[in-house]
């Protein structure tokens, strides 16, 4: 793997080809907010909170840093005005679904969200897919998946597989960033649970 250098928030960063912008930023301690990225899982690009502004050849655009590969000569701005504006709105919409959830509250504070912007219709699941992907990618079990589309999308256990695999595992409960998954199954209350090793906290 060859070395490449790019600029992140004005800092020259040297990294390996093949890493994502998010990883490159993390290596040098630049904190990009992210909800669906996890070091054990393949990049997903779902929450879009990690969106950054990149400039290449005089043109700038917004990309999800968790999936966009770091490129030689790229100029990355992790907190440009457009980026901040979008993150704020994304957090405001998520807070209407999962009000009071700690990770959202903290990010919310950072970006100065207006919690009253949208009417609260809470189900506490932000559909980050960590549980679904952890079960599939790390455990190889696929006992939990998505059903439905759009705002009707939800996370569900696949009963036949779950009956076999879940009693001895339960690891997805720990990875849920809002705590709704364990709480739905009587395993924990939303605010009380141990955060997993999440690199962004």
């Amino acid at each position, binding site marked *: 793997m060859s070395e490449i250098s790019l600029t992140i928030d004005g800092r020259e960063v040297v990294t390996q080809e093949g890493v994502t912008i998010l990883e490159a930023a993390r290596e040098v301690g630049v904190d990009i907010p992210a909800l669906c990225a996890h070091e054990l899982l393949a990049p997903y690009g779902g929450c879009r909170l990690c969106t950054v502004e990149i400039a290449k050849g005089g043109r700038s655009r917004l990309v999800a840093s968790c*999936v966009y590969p770091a490129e030689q000569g790229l100029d990355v701005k992790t907190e440009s005005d457009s980026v901040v504006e979008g993150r704020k*709105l*994304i957090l405001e919409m998520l807070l209407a679904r999962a009000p009071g959830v700690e990770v959202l509250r903290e990010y919310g504070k950072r970006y100065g969200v207006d919690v009253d912007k949208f009417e609260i219709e809470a189900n506490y699941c932000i*559909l980050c897919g960590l549980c679904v992907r952890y079960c599939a990618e790390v455990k190889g079990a696929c006992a939990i998946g*998505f059903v*439905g*589309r*759009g*705002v009707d*999308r939800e996370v569900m256990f696949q009963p036949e597989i779950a009956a076999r695999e879940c009693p001895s595992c339960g690891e997805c409960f720990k990875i849920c960033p809002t705590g709704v998954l364990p709480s739905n199954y009587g395993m924990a209350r939303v605010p009380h649970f141990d955060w997993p090793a999440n690199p962004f906290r």
Partner: protein
Amino acid sequence: VPRLNSVADLEAYRSRLHAAEDATRPCVTICSGTGCHASRSDKVYEAFVEELGRNGLSQVQILRTGCHGFCERGTIVTILPQEVTYLQVKPEDAAEIVQTTLVGGEVVGRLVYHDDEGLEILREDEIPFYAPQTPLVFGLNRFIDPNDIDTYIAHGGYASLAKALFEMSPEQVLDEVKTAELRGRGGGGFPAGAKWQTTRDAPGDIKYVVVNADEGDPGAYMDRSLLEGNPHRVLEGLIIGAYAMGAHQGFVYVRQEYPIAVENLTVALQQARDYGLLGPSVLGSGFAFDVTIHRGAGAFVSGESSALMSAIEGHVGEPKPKYVRTAVSGIWGRPTNLNNVETWATIPLIIEKGAEWFRGIGTENSKGTKIFSLVGKVNNTGLVEVPMGMPLRQVVYEIGGGIPKNRKFKAVQTGGPSGGVIPEALLDIPVDFDELDRAGSMMGSGGMIVMDEDTCMVDTARYYLNFLSEESCGKCVPCREGIYQMLEVLNRITAGEGVEGDIELLEEISQVVKRFSLCALGGTAPNPVLSTLRHFQDEYEAHIYDKRCPSGVCKALISYYIDPEKCRACMLCLKNCPVEAITGARKEVHVIDQAKCTKCGACAEVCPARYDAVAKISGVPVPEPVAAGTQVIGKRGGEDE
């Protein structure tokens, strides 16, 4: 079944087909496309079979063709060799047509097209609907039977494939497509040649080519009609592309809702295999290629290329981040070139007539023709193929025949749910990729929905956002939550509960959904809102501030009111009101109980035009009802003045 192992075999077979043709043999062609099918063309066919049998006319051939385009007037029946075209033919007309035209040699006057002056037009291509069109891609539909490869070959089919395979190198084919400046017809308008080049240059021995037939825009059916009506043309284009890019496996992704397309394509593929046009050595050239049909499962987002490819792999049809192009890493990580049905169907023409010829049609940056599905409030609905650059006005008024019932034109919606509306002021723009973009809309796959003054633009935006909220896969937050929140605002505005700041909120969410979403569905989802805001902001303001729907569509903002001065107490509205909200009696002025009224509009519809007593009002309070039992002024109810 002939086995075509060389160009000579193909040409010899074509000559044999031509020699067997008898130009004087009478033939009844019956359009069996989507629109005509809905007008019972299958029953028309059965009626003709029966009538011909009854009259002992066994020498008359019957050809069931693909869609002709003039769907408004289906079922379309053309009698050859006279070339008399009958419109709106019903099964019960078969007997008369057989007797009068096939036996008697006369024209059935009542079934031919009549122009504005009442003159009869017999030939199909002289009908004003067709006259301004250039049906290069679509035109063959009406001469061939999609289930009979021989009819396609007889009309020059697979000659382009033979030319590409035996007279051109893959590079030359690719160069031809590049030089032609063909842009993808599926929505993005990306140069097809450049995409092909990327796939060709991408490392790897295994490459795929895909036909995207997941046409899902409301009101659009051009890809369906091409695939149903002329599957071999699409297939021929696909094989040529595969040859140019070095792919040996093709996929056709057809949506579940197109059973006839799947049926006809399945037959076409089998015939092509039998003839040696697919398989280990296409036309004996040594080039191996075959095609698999993949049926969609009903998700609009599966038309997005990465989602479509996920679905072909057997996964959920959800988009993936595409920072590495699918042309380089697509199905199973292999270089995959995907084009839309119409794009593939254009390829044989470019190879046959050359890139220079193709470049001669259209505008500076949009070459060739485009098929549009012209629907909505327009007299001649149907599929139309015109050169790029034709003024929108000509499409709507000359081909489309204008707006029915002399209503006023308001806008054309183009580009499907991701497109936008084009108002009267921009009606003279030439229709091509760039001009439509500039007008705040887009070409999309070619949907054109004409809207008249009775269409509410806020309601239109709400309709599309509702569609998109149901079709968003839900994977990424901006699309899933953003479209939902925009829809909430639009629901509020159309329900008369809009508040100051709603327009700004819509704009704010739009920008984020557009720029932060994962795929093009989210990336373009705000367009219906942005373009209606751009051209019709006054309608939004009327809804929010005056609680008035200027088009009288949004039920929460309209009321029906019977003008006591005009009411003749004829009892018609009273009897027709489904919720019994109208009181009154003979001689007594009728009154609508606003609390009971569901605003279905039945009263306005049945009120005789000579009274015109029922008014639809919006933005103003409903006048106080007259006292019960008020007598009508003037003559007695139920009588004419």
